[in-house]
């Protein structure tokens, strides 16, 4: 963090040529296969999936397995030598802008390849068990592969155009997947909501890309950074607006306030979709965009002044959306609000210039949130309900799910030494550093809300954990542990959730920082030489306090047992019915606000959706029916009359000629057939007579 603007630019100009990394050789040359293989496979499944072994699952998992292996190999090579390269082919030319399709292979994209590959592969394996018996099994895997493939197109993009293509592919695949159970109107509405909300933000993204291209003269990220170093004045003038519009696009995909409304509703899709959407694809796209353009947002001459807005949006999201998770009864919605909250941490981290900390949280979050969602899916699969009122005491029935969920929870709330502890701590430390060094009010705001957010996270996760796994079982279906095809991915993700945090321990290891800062453009950020003991001393007790409070309010000791004596004929042995309930709390003012999600959904419904669907839609329909349709109607009427005239000519004049010809031929035939009575001898005699006649004529003349 450098306080004044000019020295930073000079510093970057001096250091620009000093980034040393290999080009990855053949390995990077064929990295274009990473997005192409899943995309091709998605269509292959669509056409041939039903005839393939495992009905498409095998093909989908093979594609993701390929990405995972390629990602791991690239990661290993990147950690040894570093890879920074990009290649592209021209696909078109619009004015001065060349439209390119290509692949950028550097630390950041390799990290995303790795994440999408590994987490995606495990989720796909799990989906084999979860989706079994689904009527649209093959279709599900086709769109699921498209989802992962779209994300890979997005993260491999060396320019804004390809990024937008991937962005929209992810959007359309998410629409298909959220609405997978389209028999219920509710799910269709959720899919529409996700798509529409994203489209509003996407409009800003498109405008941002246009402003960026118009001012920088290129869509290519590397060239944009080159122009930045060159001190392009147009870019500096419009940088703020380009940055703001692109950030609004990122807010939509990454579900930042006030675009967060779609993500909890997106839980309508099958659980593996939620897991992948929240872990590696879709919601990480916005954070990825901020990370890809990080140098642009870093420099005060360009979009640096936006950082205050980014931090405030992130901080608001991480705290207020976390609060909503407390009142949810649907276990997937608890996790969904938790994701929104954690995305707030990542976005805020980008705002305070904590590039590797934000990405580190994205990385660890993918593992533990993928794990938590798959665990929730396993529970839902067992009890046939999304609601925690039908759960409880599952610890005894589903030990593997319980222990892995516990590890996921520990990682999410940030308990030492699980993954979330290290990544969240790094974000808070960066915010604190920024707050003290640069005395930024926004950073202080974020520090306060981050620590409060840690408390909230611990509080609602303990509530979910207790209501689901502790106490007495309240459901009606006999629960059972899931099959091994579902538990093995859980165990593997639990390993990730437990240990990925060790990649970046301040002062000890900085593997992850090295990984994601291997880029063509130097990333300036503060490097921590040691863990910030003061912050750990504050945050860890706060987390423990949150866990304790959650246990105190919702622990099994709070169970309410109702015993009712049922009517029976045998008076000596009355039938006792016991029902168990968990307490519900209601705080005046606060609870209604939280239950109604701050009335934001209602506001959008009444201010935007209803008027659009009501008067505006009606007016549009009227204009369409009466004004726009009038033109084609008139044309159609004219055409019809011309056609009628043509028909008259056709039936009378043109057909007459043919009828006359046909009639003449028929009459001739009727006459000629009188000559042919069917006697072979007569025919022969006649033809011989004809020959004699011809010869006679020949001789005479």
């Amino acid at each position, binding site marked *: 963090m450098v306080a004044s603007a000019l020295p930073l630019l000079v510093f970057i100009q001096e250091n620009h040529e000093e980034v040393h990394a290999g080009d990855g050789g053949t390995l990077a040359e064929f990295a274009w296969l990473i997005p192409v293989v899943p995309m091709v496979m998605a269509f292959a499944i669509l056409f041939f999936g039903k005839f393939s072994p495992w009905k498409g699952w095998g093909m989908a998992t093979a594609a993701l397995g390929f990405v995972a292996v390629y990602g791991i190999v690239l990661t290993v090579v990147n950690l040894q030598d570093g890879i920074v390269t990009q290649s592209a082919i021209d696909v078109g030319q619009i004015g001065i802008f060349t439209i390119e399709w290509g692949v950028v292979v550097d630390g950041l994209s390799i990290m995303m390849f790795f994440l999408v590959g590994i987490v995606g592969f495990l989720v796909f394996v799990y989906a084999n068990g979860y989706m079994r018996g689904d009527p649209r099994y093959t279709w599900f895997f086709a769109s699921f592969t498209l989802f992962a493939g779209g994300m890979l197109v997005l993260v491999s993009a060396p320019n804004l155009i390809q990024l937008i293509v991937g962005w929209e592919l992810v959007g359309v695949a998410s629409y298909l997947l959220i609405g997978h159970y389209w028999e219920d109107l509710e799910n269709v509405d959720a899919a529409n909501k996700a798509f529409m909300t994203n489209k509003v933000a996407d409009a800003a993204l498109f405008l941002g890309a246009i402003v960026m291209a118009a001012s920088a003269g290129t869509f290519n990220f590397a060239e944009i950074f080159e122009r930045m170093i060159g001190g392009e004045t147009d870019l500096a003038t419009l940088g703020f607006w380009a940055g703001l519009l692109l950030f609004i696009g990122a807010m939509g995909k990454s579900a930042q306030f006030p675009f967060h409304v779609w993500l909890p509703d997106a839980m309508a899709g099958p659980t593996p979709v939620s897991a992948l959407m929240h872990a590696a694809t879709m919601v990480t796209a916005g954070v990825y965009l901020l990370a890809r353009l990080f140098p642009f947002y870093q420099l005060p001459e360009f979009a640096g002044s936006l950082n205050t807005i980014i931090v405030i949006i992130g901080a608001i999201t991480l705290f207020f959306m976390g609060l909503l998770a407390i009142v949810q009864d649907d276990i997937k919605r608890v996790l969904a609000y938790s994701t929104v909250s954690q995305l707030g941490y990542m976005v805020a981290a980008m705002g305070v210039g904590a590039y590797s900390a934000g990405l580190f949280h994205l990385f660890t979050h993918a593992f533990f949130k993928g794990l938590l969602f798959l665990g929730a899916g396993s529970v839902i699969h067992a009890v046939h309900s999304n609601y925690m009122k039908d759960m409880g005491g599952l610890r005894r029935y589903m030990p593997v799910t319980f222990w892995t969920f516990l590890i996921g929870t520990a990682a999410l709330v940030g308990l030492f030494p699980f993954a979330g502890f290290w990544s969240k701590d790094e974000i808070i430390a960066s915010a604190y550093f920024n707050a003290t060094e640069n005395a930024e009010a926004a950073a202080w705001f974020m520090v306060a809300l981050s620590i409060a957010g840690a408390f909230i996270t611990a509080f609602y996760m303990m509530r979910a954990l207790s209501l689901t796994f502790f106490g007495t079982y309240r459901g009606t279906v006999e629960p059972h542990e899931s099959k091994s095809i579902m538990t093995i991915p859980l165990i593997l993700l639990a390993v990730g959730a437990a240990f990925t945090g060790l990649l970046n321990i301040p002062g000890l290891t900085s593997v992850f920082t090295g990984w994601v800062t291997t880029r063509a453009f130097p990333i300036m950020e503060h490097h921590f030489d040691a863990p910030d003991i003061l912050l750990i001393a504050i945050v860890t007790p706060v987390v423990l306090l949150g866990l304790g409070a959650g246990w105190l309010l919702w622990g099994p000791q709070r169970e309410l047992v109702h015993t009712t004596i049922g009517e029976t004929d045998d008076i000596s042995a009355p039938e006792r019915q016991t029902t168990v309930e968990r307490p519900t709390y209601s705080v005046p003012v606060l609870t209604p606000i939280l239950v109604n999600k701050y009335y934001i959904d209602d506001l959008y419904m009444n201010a935007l959706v209803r008027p659009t669907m009501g008067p505006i839609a009606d007016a549009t329909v009227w204009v369409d029916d009466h004004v726009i349709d009038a033109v084609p109607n008139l044309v159609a009427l004219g055409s019809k009359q011309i056609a009628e005239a043509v028909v008259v000519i056709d039936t009378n004049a043109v057909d007459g000629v043919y009828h006359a010809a046909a009639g003449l031929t028929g009459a001739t035939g009727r006459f000629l*057939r*009188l000559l*042919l*009575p*069917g*006697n*072979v*001898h007569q025919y*022969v005699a006649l033809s*011989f007579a004809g020959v004699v006649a011809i010869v006679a004529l020949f001789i005479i003349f």
Partner: protein
Amino acid sequence: MTIVQFILLGAAMFSVGLYGVLTRRNAVLILASVEVMLAAVNVNLVAFDVYLADQASTGQVFALFVIALAAAEAGIGIAIVLMIFRNRHSADVDELDLMRY
């Protein structure tokens, strides 16, 4: 031996053949009569070839073609007659009037 004798032989054979074609009702015999007519033509071809002393022997070559053609015609003709006989248990051409109007 003059050319006239051969022409007369050819004409006689042709007439006999034609008479056979026109009077016989059995399809096999009609085919046999056609063969006689073709043989008459061959007699004429060879006779004129020798008479004109053609260096290329065009008439004799042509007679060979006619023989080959006659063989093919007889093959196909007898096959047709056989099929008709199988279907109708008769080879009488007077009864073959299905195509008549």
